[in-house]
Structures are given as structure tokens and as C-alpha cells.
């Protein structure tokens, strides 16, 4: 009987000691995971546009995705990519990868010789209520408001890096089905006042500036997300 009393006393004592320990650990609990989905557009037979240096859009977007993933990893941000090689990925599959990742940001990466600077596009779906089972083709509707805010953060970061931007709305099957704040980022050459090209898509310096600005924007977005 004596040993039973001793065991109970030990248990009670250890339980009482555990409470303050748990209380101490609570503030430093691991923060919610922050995942970014990088969707390098096109791939495989679907080459996308042909750029001025002869490169296909699919090659450019894959290179940008890889570069951006490295920059994000260096900042402690986990990135999920929709493709790692020159493979064809259906738009439904891209959205599926993004939705399974439960990401806080989805960036669809594109490139074009038309226009100037970086074009940021948000889905043209009207804002909708978040439902348990959203319709596949209009799932982005519940996230459009957040996507517009994300576009604003990206826009600010790019402008701080002295890169001209254009904001717009678009209808694209891949981002219309994503259940995360999603923005299509289309990179075009930088042009001057007379429409002359000041930095082409093949310019490594320009690519680095764009990638760094996007990474900075995502770090800021993570900070905002954690404050909410």
C-alpha cells in the first residue's frame, strides 16, 4: 500500500510540474506552415509563346520557378512546384497540386514579348462565399479578394524594385480552380518611353531583379499572414 501512495504522489507531482512547462511552451509553439505553389506555365508539347531570344515560354517559366524556389528556400519558405522538368501538365492537375498543398500563395508564372514590365493578373471570377465543396471551375471565387490583396503586395514589391507593372483580371482555367490566393505573373521585357527594349527576357540581371522582388513580396505576405 505504501508504494501505491508513493506512486500517486509522484504522478501528481509530475502533472503539476508539467503544467507550467506547457504554459512556457505555448508562446513558442511552431507557427502555421507557409507554403507557396509555383506553377511554371506550359511544358512538354505545349510550348507557350516564343520569346525574342528563340527560347520558348515553357523553358523561361521553368527556369524562373527553379530560381524563385531557391530564393524562397533561403528565406525559410516551402515551395511546391507543379513541374520540375519539361513535362506537359494539364491545367486541372496544376490546380489539383495547388489545392492539395493547402498553400497560402499560388503563383502562375508566364512570359511574353508583348507589353512591358510585369503583368499581374487575378481571376475575373466575382467574389463568392467560401463553401465546403466549391465548384471546380469557380473555386477561386472564394479567394478572389485575397488574390487581389496579394496582387497589391506583389505590385508594391516590383515597383520598389523599379520594375513597371500592369494589373488586370483574366479568365484562365488553372487559376480559376485554385483554392488559394492566386496571381498569374507574366514577365515581359522592360521598355523605355519610346517602346525600346531596355531589358530583354534573356537578360540575367532583369530575371534576377524580378525573382528577388517576387521573393521579397512573398516574405512580406508571410509576415502579414502571421499577424492575422
Amino acid at each position, binding site marked *: 500500500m505504501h508504494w501505491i501512495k508513493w506512486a500517486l504522489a509522484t504522478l501528481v507531482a509530475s502533472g503539476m510540474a508539467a503544467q507550467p512547462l506547457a504554459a512556457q511552451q505555448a508562446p513558442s509553439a511552431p507557427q502555421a506552415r507557409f507554403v507557396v505553389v509555383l506553377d511554371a506555365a506550359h511544358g512538354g508539347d505545349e510550348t507557350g509563346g516564343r520569346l525574342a531570344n528563340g527560347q520558348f515560354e515553357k523553358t523561361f517559366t521553368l527556369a524562373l520557378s527553379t530560381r524563385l524556389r531557391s530564393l524562397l528556400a533561403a528565406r525559410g519558405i516551402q515551395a511546391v512546384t507543379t513541374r520540375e522538368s519539361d513535362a506537359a501538365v494539364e491545367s486541372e492537375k496544376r490546380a489539383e497540386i495547388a489545392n492539395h498543398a493547402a498553400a497560402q500563395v499560388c503563383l502562375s508564372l508566364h512570359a511574353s514579348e508583348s507589353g512591358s514590365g510585369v503583368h499581374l493578373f487575378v481571376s475575373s471570377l466575382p467574389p463568392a462565399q467560401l463553401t465546403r465543396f466549391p465548384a471546380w471551375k469557380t473555386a477561386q471565387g472564394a479567394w478572389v479578394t485575397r488574390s487581389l490583396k496579394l496582387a497589391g503586395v506583389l*505590385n508594391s514589391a516590383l515597383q520598389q524594385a523599379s520594375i513597371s507593372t500592369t494589373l488586370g483580371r483574366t479568365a484562365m482555367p488553372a487559376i480559376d480552380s485554385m483554392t488559394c490566393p492566386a496571381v498569374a505573373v507574366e514577365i515581359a521585357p522592360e521598355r523605355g518611353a519610346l517602346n525600346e527594349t531596355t531589358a530583354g527576357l534573356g537578360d540575367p540581371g532583369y530575371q534576377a531583379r524580378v525573382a528577388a522582388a517576387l521573393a521579397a513580396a512573398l516574405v512580406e505576405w508571410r509576415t502579414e499572414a502571421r499577424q492575422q
Partner: protein
Amino acid sequence: MIPRYQKIIFGLLLAASVAMGVTLWHLRQRAHERLIAGQDSAPTSAPQIAPSEQATLLVANDSDGSLLTQFLSLPLPADPGARARAVLGKLLDLYAAPDAAHPVPGGASSIIQVFLLPAADIGPGAANPAKPKLADSRTVVILPGDSSARPSGALSQETEQTGPQLAVVNLTGAFAANHPSGIETEMLTVLSICGTLHANLPRVTQVRFLVDGAQRSTLAGHADLTRTYLAADAVPAEEIRP
């Protein structure tokens, strides 16, 4: 010496040959006259010279991603479908010009046809807003006025004559194949077509696209061509710019 019966047979065969030759020539003449008569009876009408009217074009500009309103005086046919085709043809001619701000090859011949259809089917259980209501992102139900007190047949006839219209723009495959690839450039083409149609035919509130008469997933890899675009999507330039 040729026997008498052979002479008679030869004479008969010669007469038959001449008769058949005459008949053949006569039939040929009749067939020729019938052909000419048939051509004359074809219902061809002389081309009418349409009077020039002011057309409003929403012209895309790649440099700042905007749509700018441009007014032009064009000879426009009275038929709405032909009118829509003429206006869009002029728009695409501007894009095909060497110094275009939104260069797209093809020109007016890229528009095969523009069909105008009633925009909405009004069912008995349908909601009844006075202004456009988005049923979902892909389709729009536009219901004019109070429909509940009127018979559905009269309403559908009235809607057909005065109600909103869906324009189906049938483009050539060559236009889509040669269109520059990119989200911005493709969206500008789509929105400028939608906006130009609505500016000149205000009843057109929705626009769908076909390529060579069939549905196509995207214009040149980006802009979704499977959805119905609202004319309201083509907003003025000031609202598109950041």
C-alpha cells in the same frame, strides 16, 4: 454490183445518223438555253452602298495594357450581324496595320461570322432582378423588368426583339494560330472585341468565341475561350490601368 436491199439499208442508216445528229444538236441548244435561263433566275441582288455612320472601337494598346476608345466613320450595314462583323473587321484591320499598338496579324478576314442570339432563357422559376445577376462565373442570367405577370410566349418574343443578346464570334483558325501568345495580349484582344461589340450594339451583353466553328480552349495558350464573356468585362482604360 451492190444489191438493192443493201442500198436501202445504207440509206436508212445514213438518214438515221443525220436525224440523230440533228436531234443531238437540238438537245444541246436546249440544255444551253436552260443553263442560261437558270443563271438569270438566280436571286442575286445588287450590292447596296451602306451610308457611313460613326462606329466606336475599343482599341487595345500593349504598351500600357489599356483599351482606348476610338471613333471612326464607317459604312455600316443595317443588319445587326453584318454590322457587328463590319465593326470587328475594322478593329482587326487596325491590329493588322504595321504600326499597330496591339499587333495581331489577320485583319478583317479573320472574322468568319458573328451570330446574334437571345442572351437568356427565362424560366418560370427564374429569379427576377432588374439588373444583370451572376448565376455563376460562366453564365449570366439577365432578366429585364417584371416577367411574372406576362405570358411566357409573349415575353420570349419580346425578349428576342428588345432583350439582351449573346454574340457568338466565329474566328478563323489562322487568326488564333498567329495570335501573339501572352495573357495580356490575348485578354486585350478578347476584351476589345467584347467592348467594341457592346459599344456599337448595346443589346449585346455577352460574347462567346468559336474558332473555325468549333469551341477552342484558349486563344493562344492563355485566354479562356470556353467561357461566356460579359461585355461589362471590357472596362474603360482608366479602370484597367494600375
